[in-house]
């Protein structure tokens, strides 16, 4: 697999010049591991869903305004060039036009602010959670403490040095594999307490829509509720030193029964 992928890479790079044009035409892909991925990973939590919807809403509004404004500009560049019009008009202001194009953006912005405010209020509500996990960032690994179950372990990069130094073929989850995954039950509201022990890190899993800075001396909180079982991968998002690029996060979302069995297994060890 890896060999084919490598030999095709140059050809794909050439195709990459064309890809942005495909985007302009409105073909959006969202699969997490598709190559040439153009958009967010597939959302699996209420927060990630609402982020995705807001993102697409704002994006399309921006695209529409962009096409309109620059459509007019490029028409002008074509129609009002000197070879077609020897003499320029001489107007230099229009109060009516200026009022209109000040008011319209205000209305559009209000239209954006309302759903954003609602989403934010929902996202910041960490009350009524079913369980709490404390996450601590270290240079360069994560520590997970299940405060309700007395489970406590570290989670660090598992990709071998040889792959990073190009002495061995790279696996599918190159740089996104850890020795011990964070195991979470699906359909439970989980409160995550996030802090750090040395410098600032940020805990981020894109499919969960969860990103928060891990700051020494402070405890931040976010919540997540995963819809479907699966493995979700993320990385530290705040520059934290030499191995910032090498402290990934892997979340296993499992059914409640599987989660209880896992807890049993962990606590009996």
């Amino acid at each position, binding site marked *: 697999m890896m060999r084919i992928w490598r030999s095709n890479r140059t050809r794909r790079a050439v195709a990459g010049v064309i890809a942005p044009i495909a985007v302009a035409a409105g073909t959006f892909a969202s699969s997490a591991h598709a190559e040439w991925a153009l958009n967010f990973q597939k959302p699996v939590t209420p927060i990630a869903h609402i982020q995705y919807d*807001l993102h697409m809403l704002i994006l399309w509004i*921006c695209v529409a305004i962009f096409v309109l404004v620059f459509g007019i500009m490029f028409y002008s*560049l074509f129609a009002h060039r000197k070879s077609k019009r020897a003499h*320029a*008009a001489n107007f230099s202001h229009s109060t009516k036009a200026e009022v209109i194009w000040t008011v319209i953006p205000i209305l559009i*912005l209000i239209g954006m602010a309302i759903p954003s405010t609602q989403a934010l209020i929902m996202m910041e509500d960490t009350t009524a959670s079913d369980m709490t996990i404390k996450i601590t960032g270290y240079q360069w690994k994560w520590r997970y403490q299940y405060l309700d179950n007395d489970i406590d372990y570290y989670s660090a990069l598992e990709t071998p040095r040889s792959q990073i130094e190009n002495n061995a073929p790279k696996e599918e989850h190159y740089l996104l594999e850890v020795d011990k995954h964070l195991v979470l039950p699906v359909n439970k509201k989980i409160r995550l307490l996030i802090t750090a022990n*040395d410098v600032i890190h940020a805990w981020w899993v894109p499919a969960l829509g969860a990103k928060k800075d891990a700051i020494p001396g402070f405890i931040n909180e976010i919540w997540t509720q995963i819809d479907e079982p699966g493995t979700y991968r993320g990385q530290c998002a705040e*520059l934290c*030193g030499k191995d910032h690029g090498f402290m990934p996060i892997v979340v296993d979302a499992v059914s409640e029964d599987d989660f209880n069995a896992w807890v049993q297994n962990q606590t009996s060890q």
Partner: protein
Amino acid sequence: MTATTADQHHDHHPTGITRWLFTTNHKDIGTLYLWFSFTMFIIGGLMAMIIRSELFEPGLQFVDPLFFNQMTTVHALVMIFGAAMPAFVGLANWQIPLMIGAPDMALPRLNNWSFWLLPPAATLLIASLFVPGGAPAGGWTIYPPLSIQGGMGVDFGILALHMMGISSIMGSINIIATIMNMRAPGMILMKLPMFVWTWLITAFLLVTCIPVLAGAITMLLTDRHFGTHFFDSSGGGDPVMFQHIFWFFGHPEVYILILPAFGVVSQIIPTFSRKPLFGYTSMVFATATIAFLSFIVWAHHMFTVGMPLTGELFFMYSTMLIAIPTSVKIFNWVSTMWRGSLTFETPMLYAIGMVFLFTIGGFSGLMLAIVPADFQYHDTYFVVAHFHYVIFGGTILGALGAVYFWLPKWTGHMYNETLGKWHFWLTVIGMNVTFFPQHFLGLAGMPRRIPDYALQFAEFNMVSSLGAFLLGLSQIIFLINVLKTIKGGEKASDRVWEGSTGLEWTVPSPAPYHTFATPPVVK
């Protein structure tokens, strides 16, 4: 008549190195700033080439992760403080006296010192790469506690920033003093050319926000060496406080980089549209509004630090407001072109390219303002794409356009139009191939500031690197074109452009060493 004799006498200036070391002439100092800026642009660009080479493929090929972090950090510091800001101070030195009919800057000796602080500061910053522990590697934002961990290179960086900051403050005081006191009779403020207006506002931003940066990095220095705990939570300090102080400087700084470029575009577009600037008054007020707003939006750079809901809402709304004055400016530029008589010489191409590409960065900025979505975008390549569209697409294209626009006035020769157009198109293509795919990388989940990445990001990274190499190489054309123009070429007329308006086009090309010894009268 005596004035004329005196002029001729003063045209004899010292020659050789002393001319440049001791000069108090705004044109000489402007030239020094511009060459310094270009040198830094090349040095910072080479660092970008190292970054993009390492990111060409997954795996570690050329540099180790710590050196990679030094490259991203120093690339940013060199480009912002060494290339972008001095480029516009250079343009201000050359053009503000010419545009307001002043014989020179108000404070010529201060002007000399402002410039000559920069080369030692830049030397110090670059030298940090060669001290034990290497250069600052905590990002240009130098967040503690990470920046507390760094070696003496961080102290080099702090001292360099202090010196560059002092240089900027003095340069700004000079610009304010010049514009307030040295305008030609009849040139009331509301008749100032837009480039001068934007610089006046920018200078006020600089004198307000640079001391805040100086405070932040001084506290960082005492935390590092003198046992204070301003930013150390184990000693009762607060690492997030640094971010608040830094971005209180950092956001106005972003507008310091872009506002003079707005000014340049507002000079170029009317010239090549052969039509007055649309909405001059609203341009001035929009610029002032942007400047004011820049002081109340800083925390949008740090939405993920865990602010209270009300704080997040305030900074989201205030940030969204910036879209209004900014869109007023864009509509005004488009309206200036509307029903004009347009030609597309190289400066005009740069101005149109700037409006187009800056707006892409503006839209991604609006997306970043939406806090719930920002939680996904924050600290990803989406942000990298955003600020390169704004700073390269806006600031750098604006500066390049300005050089092509005024080079005939400075040298007395026309630049080579064919080379200029090649430079424009290769730069714009290179820039878009480099930075557009970075939007996708960020959305798909690639964090910024990493030396190696997961396999799903391989394709767009390779495209981005290829674009970066093209972008880097195309700047050689610019250097060749400028050098050729200095040496010779078609003689430029005094007006240079058919649609020229403004005092700078009333003096001969090349502009004599001393201009406006007798102030012109503006009707």
